[in-house]
């Protein structure tokens, strides 16, 4: 219960947050540069648009850069050669697969920090672009570049990914979580504790309601935890809270209804476990939880609306990606409720049969 409600959603939120969010507790990455004037470095830094936790420091010489990267003081380094400033020397500074190393640049990295190496390569590319644009030698560039590059606000790509995937993964987790909840009911049946409950002076419907209620509460708690953690710690934007709550409730009812019904078809807990995972993966692919429906052919986009998670993503997408107001999700919410009534009704009948004489 604690694992499904709290631990797993927290882990899920943390993975998504650290992967795509902007509030991760990462330290500052310092990249050292030598061989370029401060003005050139500033220009390159502006052109590269590093995140705020990346610092650039000018180091007197190449030996210093190599030494500081080796001892960990610097995360990565760029050495600009003053003897190679022909255009052909400057155009390919990035060590792409199969690419030639530029004789004008040396990018120094550490094997344990791929990110720092990529940042250093980006800085090298930025330096190259400024040198190329200004047709200047490395030591003589001024604050004013020969040409002005105008950039628009590209936004935070990672943030948008987080805005999409946080509800997306939380929704599919609802299905798997409800399947596992149903599996626990089967374990109770095989362990005999369900029979002992059925022999007690309580109405079977109370046992069924207790079991299904626990699955629903667990599911709702898990999605609310993911919402809370990804938005408060990692800055995900789910949209208006009223709409999110509506979608959370609708998604929980539909996904748990379907999850409980499908896993109740299993003959034993092992089958239930398998169904929860396999159908969960299938729905994820079809509904767009793993690949956004927009990236799929139109046929698949239509097909995704045949799944409850597809409708859940329609609602959450309106709120988080399009910035629509809460009432915009009433349609998807009603569809989810319909799915919940259909699958939940069948699930209820299956579970009643397990408990009633």
């Amino acid at each position: 219960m604690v694992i499904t409600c709290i631990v797993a959603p927290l882990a899920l939120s943390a993975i998504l947050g650290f992967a795509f969010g902007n509030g991760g507790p990462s330290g500052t990455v310092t990249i050292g540069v030598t061989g370029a004037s401060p003005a050139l470095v500033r220009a390159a830094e502006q052109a590269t648009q590093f995140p705020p936790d990346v610092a650039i420091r000018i180091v007197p010489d190449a030996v210093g850069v190599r030494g500081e990267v080796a001892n960990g003081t610097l995360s990565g380094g760029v050495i600009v050669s003053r003897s190679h400033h022909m255009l052909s020397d400057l155009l390919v500074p990035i060590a792409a697969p199969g690419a030639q190393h530029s004789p004008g640049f040396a990018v120094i990295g550490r094997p344990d920090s791929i990110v720092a190496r990529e940042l250093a390569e980006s800085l090298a590319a930025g330096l190259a672009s400024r040198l190329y644009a200004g047709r200047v030698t490395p030591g003589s560039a001024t604050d004013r570049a020969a040409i002005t590059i105008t950039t628009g606000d590209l936004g935070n790509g990672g943030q948008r990914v987080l805005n999409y995937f946080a509800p997306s993964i939380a929704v599919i987790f609802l299905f798997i979580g409800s399947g596992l909840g149903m599996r626990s009911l089967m374990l109770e049946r095989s362990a005999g504790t369900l029979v002992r409950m059925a022999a007690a002076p309580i109405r079977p419907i109370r046992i069924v309601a207790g079991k299904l209620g626990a699955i629903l509460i667990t599911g709702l708690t898990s999605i609310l935890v993911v919402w809370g953690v990804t938005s408060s710690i990692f800055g995900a934007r789910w949209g208006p809270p009223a709409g999110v709550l509506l979608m959370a409730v609708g998604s929980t009812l539909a996904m748990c209804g379907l999850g409980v019904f499908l896993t109740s078809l299993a003959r034993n807990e092992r089958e239930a476990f398998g169904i929860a995972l396999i159908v969960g993966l299938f729905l994820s692919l079809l509904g767009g939880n793993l690949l956004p429906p927009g990236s799929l052919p139109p046929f698949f986009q239509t097909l995704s609306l045949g799944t409850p998670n597809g409708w859940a993503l329609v609602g959450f997408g309106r709120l988080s990606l399009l910035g629509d107001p809460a009432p915009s999700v009433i349609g998807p919410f009603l569809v989810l409720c319909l799915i919940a009534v259909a699958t939940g009704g069948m699930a209820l009948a299956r579970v009643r049969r397990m408990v009633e004489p």
Partner: protein
Amino acid sequence: MAVDNVSFSVAEGECYGLLGPNGAGKTTTISMVCGLLRADSGEVTIDGHPGGSLEAKAAVGYVPQDLALYPDLSAHENLHFFGQLYGLRGSALEARIEDTLALVGLSDRADDRIGTYSGGMKRRANIAAGLLHEPRLLVLDEPTVGVDTQSRHAILETVAGLGISVLYTTHYMEEATKLCQRIGIIDDGRLVAEGTPRHLIDEFGGADRVRLTFRQAETAVMELACGQLPGVQEVRPFEGGLELGTDHGAGVLPTLVQTAGQHGVELTGVEVLMPDLEGVFLTLTGKELRD
């Protein structure tokens, strides 16, 4: 059809045994008594309430054959949970847990996880869960299957000392004989006989049997001599000797020994077999109880 035309009653304070082999219909019968299965026809009445009703369920303590407790919880935690299902709360529940665990001898292991218990201790904890709410009728489904002799003895002692109505299913005739005031013999879903153990044995147990063993060469002589003795109703060959049917096995023994001596036959073994429930079952169903 799992059971057919099974009818019996258990009196206040009586221990009633349902004796039958595996698959005879014992568990099906008690499942209907406990309200876990619905009968196609007929009725179950418990303490004046229809079987399966909440009142009837409250009057029954059910002890399933297999352990029906949460292995990751302690005995105390298990009893606390199941006690609440029977409406027990607060200090009354705690007192019942304490009393019940003491009754089954598990007070000192109350806070240990059930999963760490031995097989016999698990069975006793299982019984404790059935006794927790002080039922009018305790239904035990083969509670001693697969437990060691010591635990089996402890379980039988506990059940014998309860003083409440007990419905006890078993395929161990010794248990049924020791515990039960009345026994119903069930086979192929039918109650084939019912009564006190003595009555059943007298009625269906057949004659005493005396088994004599001696040298094989003397079988013909002894068969002829024994067949002429008063009180001996039947003589048939038995592995290594003869088996005699008689109304009073112990009574004919001196005459048998004397007859053997007169014919110069040296007896190497004498065994008197009294009729028992095994014999009753054999007579009524034509098969062994443990088939």
